């Protein structure tokens, strides 16, 4: 939050927390050695804060729902297909698309850290990085899904994919009913971030 309120007159600048000072120290040291450019760091922060996010993945999903040839290519080898749409680069070097069906629901976790398809979904939410999710997603996926408000019939198998530094997964959620004839753009608005991680479903259209 911006420091835009003051209960009293601070005699000096607000002291950042210890880790922030340590990051400042690293930045100073590395900049002096010419290993980093402060402007390049700001650019990276701005990119993930403002420009790259789950809207990218939603476009891919909506397109897969609308275009059978695109869907087939995506499921066969997603990396070049999403790269053609401009979604490539950092942490998107090898993307695998996994499709939900009436038989299987897919869910993605990174049990070791927080690997995630940045070009398609941006930076992962805190819960994806939490111990609770990372440890429970594999052990008790249905309970985790229930915590997210998703209850699946028993006959649907839940398949959990563990991301790595090499492979990132994108879940293609099932297309909601009542969306026949909708445009790719309107369909994309139904695709939530969580539905592409597998902890949610695509939204039903509002009549």
């Amino acid at each position, binding site marked *: 939050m911006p420091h835009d309120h003051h209960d009293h007159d601070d005699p000096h*600048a607000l002291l950042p927390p210890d880790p922030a000072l340590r990051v400042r120290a690293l930045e100073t040291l590395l900049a002096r050695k010419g290993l980093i450019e402060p402007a390049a760091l700001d650019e990276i922060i701005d990119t*993930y*804060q403002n420009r790259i996010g789950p809207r990218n993945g*939603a476009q891919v999903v909506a397109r897969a729902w609308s275009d059978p040839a695109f869907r087939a290519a995506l499921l066969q080898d997603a990396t070049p297909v999403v790269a053609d749409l401009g979604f490539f680069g950092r942490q998107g070097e090898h993307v695998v698309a996994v499709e939900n069906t009436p038989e299987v629901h897919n869910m993605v976790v990174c049990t070791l850290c927080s690997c995630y398809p940045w070009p398609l979904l941006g930076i992962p939410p805190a819960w994806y990085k939490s111990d609770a999710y990372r440890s429970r997603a594999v052990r008790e996926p249905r309970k985790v899904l229930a915590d997210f408000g998703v209850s699946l019939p028993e006959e649907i198998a839940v398949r959990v994919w563990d991301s790595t530094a090499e492979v990132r997964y994108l879940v293609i959620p099932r297309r909601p009913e009542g969306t026949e004839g909708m445009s790719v753009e309107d369909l994309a608005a139904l695709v939530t971030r969580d539905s592409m991680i597998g902890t949610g479903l695509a939204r039903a259209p509002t009549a």
Partner: protein
Amino acid sequence: MSDQTPGAKAPEPVFTLPWHGQVFALTVSLNEAGHFAWSEWTARFSQTLARHGLEKELDGGDDYFNAWLETLEALLADLGEAAPADVERLRDAWEAAYLSTPHGDPVHLPEGA
């Protein structure tokens, strides 16, 4: 553009504290400049998370970025790019600079710090 998750409260910020974004960007930048492979990063980061996770359940927020920072400091020390003593000295210099700068003024390190 409408909020993508109706019913949700305010959209979650990508980085809840500025230093979370800064340490993230620092790491990405160093990786892209070829100072270490991302697979090396994730292997080390996983180990830090596992070690911290033994002490308490990590929340994925500040805990996560504290582990991130610790991993980066150790990696840079091992690479010979940032000796812990140098980092500590600059950290203290920044602290002193904050404490001696009048509120509202930009904070700079003094010459020679």
